[in-house]
């Protein structure tokens, strides 16, 4: 069986290739220039994929993230298209092309999966992300590096306050009522983990008021509506910015907190901003050198386990994360990782685990073992192929 993989600068590309190889699949690849072309409707891209499928005699096409043009190409060639979407939000899942029977669209947020299923879409499946512990295991430190990356508590990620992420500044000129309204739904959502009330609470009137100052164009081929876009791209990010700021600020009042983030963070006066780090070369070192690694999930990910969490555990780091319901499917709290469900709870647990080294190490180790054995790319490939009804050809 031959798989055509679409290469772009996504996470996990090398890992999935290795997993496919190990599973006995023949492989071929093409570069997929998704930054330059419209992945919804570019004839050029679709043609590229069609030719690659035909020239290589591929049986299956694979990409990280779902692309409508690829779905069109695969459907035209009558081959299966496996996509594994790790971004959130990901509006292209709402493209009408999702329903092509040749699609096998895997999503990592169970809530997203249920939402799509409830819309009658039967080509989506839930598949959590994974980590390549072998890759992370390779990382060793010398003493200077250990000192460079050492920290009691670390946070690695975007603050979503950077200009490119602060989409809500597009709302300048918004009327007072709607401003208060947005403030209200964010405050309400802050208290709730495991469910999102954002989209449902963005009523048609509110959406209309927002569109007066920030017109949004709905894509021609999609079924997502303005309230979905607003909730997931705008409000969720703004809320995440608020939460990450508040939580890191409060934590840094009591403890030593290092953050690795692209933007400036003058508003976080007591944190040690060490600037952005390279995911492949530095991230594992930063995780391993930190006693506690914080995950504060982007709010558009309603219940899913973010890639960051798998990365941290896969590096053997101790994970202290906000409550995300999908963890309950695979991990045991206080055994493999620890979760918090409020700012106070976060501070309390951070303090506790900074004082209890042995417990912390035990939890980190347990989380690592679980990820290594049950959440690696090879197992995910097996799970995907189970759904496709394809037996693995290689080692079992």
């Amino acid at each position, binding site marked *: 069986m031959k798989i055509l993989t679409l290469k772009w600068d996504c996470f996990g590309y090398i890992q999935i290739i290795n997993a496919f190889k190990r599973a006995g699949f023949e492989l071929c690849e093409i570069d997929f220039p998704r930054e330059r072309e419209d992945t919804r409707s570019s004839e050029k891209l679709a043609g590229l994929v069609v030719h690659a499928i035909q020239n290589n005699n591929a049986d299956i096409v694979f990409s990280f993230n779902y692309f409508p043009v690829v779905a069109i190409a695969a459907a035209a060639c009558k081959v299966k298209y496996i996509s594994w979407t790790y971004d959130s939000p990901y509006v292209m899942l709402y493209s009408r092309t999702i329903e092509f029977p040749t699609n096998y669209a895997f999503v990592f947020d169970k809530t997203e999966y249920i939402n799509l299923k409830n819309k009658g879409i039967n080509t989506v499946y839930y598949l959590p992300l994974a980590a390549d512990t072998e890759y992370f295991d390779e990382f060793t430190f010398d003493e200077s590096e250990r000192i460079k990356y050492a920290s009691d508590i670390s946070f690695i990620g975007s603050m979503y306050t950077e200009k490119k992420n602060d989409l809500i500044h597009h709302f300048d000129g918004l009327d007072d009522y709607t401003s208060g309204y947005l403030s209200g739904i964010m405050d309400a959502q802050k208290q709730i983990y495991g469910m999102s009330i954002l989209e449902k*609470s963005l009523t048609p009137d509110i959406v209309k008021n927002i569109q007066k100052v920030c017109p949004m164009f709905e894509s021609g081929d999609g079924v997502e509506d303005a309230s979905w876009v607003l909730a997931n791209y705008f409000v969720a990010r703004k809320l995440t910015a608020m939460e990450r700021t508040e939580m890191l600020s409060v934590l840094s009042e009591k403890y030593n907190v290092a953050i690795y983030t692209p933007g400036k963070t003058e508003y976080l006066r007591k944190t040690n901003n060490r600037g952005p780090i390279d995911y492949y070369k530095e991230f594992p070192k930063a995780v391993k050198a930190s006693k506690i690694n914080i995950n504060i999930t982007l709010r558009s990910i309603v219940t899913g386990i973010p890639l960051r969490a798998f990365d941290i555990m896969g590096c053997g780091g101790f994970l202290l994360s906000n409550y995300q319901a999908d963890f309950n499917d695979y991990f045991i709290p206080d055994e493999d990782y620890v979760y918090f469900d409020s700012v106070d709870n976060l501070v309390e647990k951070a303090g506790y685990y900074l004082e209890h080294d042995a417990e912390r190490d035990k939890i980190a180790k347990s989380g690592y073992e679980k990820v290594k054995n049950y959440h690696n790319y090879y197992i995910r490939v097996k799970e995907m192929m189970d759904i496709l009804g394809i037996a693995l050809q290689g080692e079992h």
Partner: protein
Amino acid sequence: MRALVFRWGAYTEEDLIHYFKIMNINTSIIIYELADKNHDDPFEELLKKKIENGQFDFVFSVNYFPVIAEVCYKTGIRYISWSYDAPLNVINIEETLGLPTNTVYMFDRLQAKEYQDKGINTVFYLPLAVPVERYDAMSLSDKEKAKYGSGISFVGNMYTDILGSYISPLSEYDKGYISAICNAQSNLYGAYIIDENISDELIKRINDKYREIKPDTEIEMSREALSYAMAAFVTRRERISILGVLANRSELKYYSRNKCEMLENAIFCNSVDYVSEMPKVFKASTVNLNITLKILRSGIPLRALDIMGCGGFLLSNYQPELAEYFSDEVDMVMYSSVEDAISKAMYYARNKEKAESIAINGYEKVKKYFNYIDRINTIVDKIK
């Protein structure tokens, strides 16, 4: 045992007194219309005299009255109260709640916990009960079945919209904010988030505005009052949505003090007598709706228990303690959105046998686990 029972007109007084008597608790009654739960000199005199002239083991009331708590404390007699309201609507309740002669039972576990967490150790959790024997003995004539029967029935308060007037002087921003909190709450079942989102600053802004309009105003908005108004607003909207849509698709009777103009196709029946008529509604209807006031965080409302205790089929909003004691789709059915409520109500209204078999299970559970004998035993055991 001898009890002095304070009667003020609570629904459950008659049943309680009946069961006290069955369990050999001698009951004397004191009836009084209290204008103020905290203070009433003539009543305090009257109660004090009655206590001193009798030899009671305890004074009892449905719901909690600080004025009774104080008299009991002064006279050194135990005061037992068992609430079926949440919130309790008692001003400055914490001033007397912890008095050592008190034993205060609350039917909402989270409500009880809130006080217990403050160190008030006179508060205990005790779910409500149903007079199953009395309901069993009630039979309906054909005429009554026609009168009280319906595909779908709802007994309850439609609430008037006071929130609008409370917040009318506020800024547009604050109005938008409050609207958002209400909408967020509408979409949530099993959690009450309104309280945490009413900040002190917001309350202050409201009161500042009131004073701006009328400098010598005596009106003072509190978090409790605003929270209640918001909860009532959200619940009213949920009741209107569900009843309104259902009434367009099925026969629907609602029993309430005031007719709701928005429910055009629903059959408005005046409010029913709790003791003699309400059970007949539940017995004669295929689907009985319970749509809990949002501010009741976890407890099972009396309405829901009464429905099941009458052998009626219960369709209720998701309520944490309901889910704890009863099995969804086995003993009763719960919904977790307006759409869910509508589709389930229609389904069971059309599938009478299924509704009846579920109702029987609910009835058996209520009979076994929510009866007055057990509750009174719990109360009496604590005295000993």
